[in-house]
């Protein structure tokens, strides 16, 4: 018997107003220990899909389960099973970097010893030790993004939803993030990652979901979507270009 996917999105239709859905029958899964790239043009529906998964929007039709449970069944357990890194950092101006990590750890019920060990490691990895006691309002955009990423990783839930994480990060930060995501994946965590930097994620994601105008137009491994685009052996960028151009 196959293992239950960590994230299952089934025939999801939804959007900002009834009768005008942005998403049309979106269907995909993310399995345990898998990193899946969600790619699409601006306005394709990536962030809307993520908002539905987070429970910030309600589907018009279809359903979403995380570890086999819907949000309606147990909102707290559902929310505890995932961590989100939004495209634009959303931080509390009144908290320092360290306090953000502590708040996230408390909210996700992380043991204090684990929090201390994880926070120390993340601060070092993302080169933020010197800024640990600075208020978030005094950080640059890239640093704020690092705080968001660290808050997600201090929690260690089974599923990470990460929206455009590389925006504003310095090259070292991008490398640290990619390395850490690989480590998390190796430990069994699942990651749904949206990014426009296709050349970067091409080598890191196990599978890809191509979203175009609210529909999944291709999904699978790099080789599988290359076949769907009739471009075997091509790079992700070429495959994507061919798919979305064909979809127009």
């Amino acid at each position, binding site marked *: 018997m196959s293992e239950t996917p960590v994230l299952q999105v089934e025939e999801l239709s939804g959007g900002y107003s009834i009768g005008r859905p942005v998403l049309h029958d979106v269907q995909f899964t993310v399995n345990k220990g898998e990193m899946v790239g969600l790619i699409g043009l601006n306005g394709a529906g990536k962030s809307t899909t993520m908002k539905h998964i*987070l429970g910030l929007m309600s589907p018009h039709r279809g359903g979403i389960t995380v570890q086999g449970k819907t949000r309606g069944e147990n909102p707290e357990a559902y929310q505890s099973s995932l961590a989100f890194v*939004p495209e634009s950092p959303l931080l*509390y101006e*009144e908290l320092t970097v360290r306090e953000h990590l502590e708040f996230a750890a*408390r909210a996700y019920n992380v043991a204090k010893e684990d929090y201390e060990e994880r926070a120390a490691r993340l601060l070092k990895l993302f080169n933020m030790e010197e800024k640990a006691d600075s*208020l978030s309002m005094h950080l640059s955009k890239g640093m704020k993004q690092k705080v968001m990423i660290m808050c997600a990783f201090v929690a260690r839930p089974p599923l990470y939803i990460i929206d455009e994480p590389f925006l504003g990060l310095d090259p070292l930060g991008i490398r640290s993030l990619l390395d850490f995501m690989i480590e998390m994946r190796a430990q069994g965590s699942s990651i749904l990652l949206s990014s426009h930097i296709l050349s970067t994620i091409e080598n890191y994601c196990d599978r890809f979901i191509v979203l175009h105008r609210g529909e999944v137009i291709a999904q699978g491994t790099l080789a599988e979507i290359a076949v769907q685009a009739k471009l075997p052996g091509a790079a992700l960028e070429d495959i994507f270009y061919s798919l979305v151009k064909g979809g127009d």
Partner: protein
Amino acid sequence: MELQELRRKRKSSFWSKVLPFVPYVIQSGVAVLFLLLLIAFAAWYTNFLQNIPPGLPVLWIMLLLLGPMTVYSSFRTYMQPADIIFLLPREADMKQYLSPAHRSGVIYKLIGLFLILVLVWPLYIRSGVDTKPLWMVLLVLLLLKVLSAYGSWQELRITTVRARMGYRLLRWCVILLMLAAWLWQPAWKSLIFMLLVGVNYVLALRFPMKHAVAWDNLIEAEKIGASKVMMWLGWFVEVPADGQKVIRRRWLSAVGNRMPWQRSTAYRFLITKTFIRSELLGIVARLTLLGMILTGWNGASWLGIGLYLFFTFLIATQLTSLHQMHADSPATAFYPLPSGAHKTEAIRLASRLLLVLTVLMWIPLALASWMDNLMWVLLSLVIAVLMVFGLRSTWVKKWKDEDE
């Protein structure tokens, strides 16, 4: 679009968002209570003026009331973060956009200042000190206010934070000193003193490096100005409390660090840290201090107990804004916080703080009167504590209804 026209549109857009709340402010019970208190104060003040205690430090009272009002200065520019991109190319023309802010920054505050002067004037002329003519006092206050507004505007333009803070401190000292000189010294002497100090102060403002237009500082100041209006509205009706000034207060950084390590305390941690760095803490601290002074002064008299209960209520009104802190923050939705944590923790913090401050304000009252009037001293505490619990249950019900 002309820059003056742009400012006018932004101003009307901001106030069109605020004005719909005004009828709710008038309808709210808090507004009625303030009105009743105003009437009670007027009655008490009239009586007080007829029996002014001998040796009352009238000049000090005037300095205390008029000083901060004269020095305090702020500007509403209605500037927005995007202006750094879209208005920067027109930096040379920004004078026409900003000059109305200078005028309104002085005019509206002058109204408040003159009202306080009118209020304190009968006390001044009955006090027996060597009084100066009203028109001269008005003129001096106007000049000092303009000087303070000029200094405050120059401070916004200063490039370094340290120099800005230094000049702010200098402005407070200089204006208070000039006002004190005017109150205590003969007119001709104090005018010479004010002229000399004023000229030196203006010259001193020329030294630090300044921006032509301090975009970041002006946008930040506007954000704070707008949030203050919303905070004031928040005392009466439910409005978002975002965008308020954050103050580092390193000496309070450890507060909240020793909370029990549980999921249920996550929101408590957030709201406590937010509170210690908020303007609300400053407001509540100032009110408590003023309450302690007034209750200590009046003891367990009717007036003392009335003031004690009034300040307890006033602080409670301020603390209700804890309910709005992070209420609409999208970030809160990302974290698996226990259901209802927002409301529960806001009530918990507000009621505990209120209880502590109620006892704090009671101490000077008790020290002043426990020997003569022990029963009333104890009774005042019992009434205040009952009021705290009453307010707490009102919050529980009201916020529950709102959430539903």
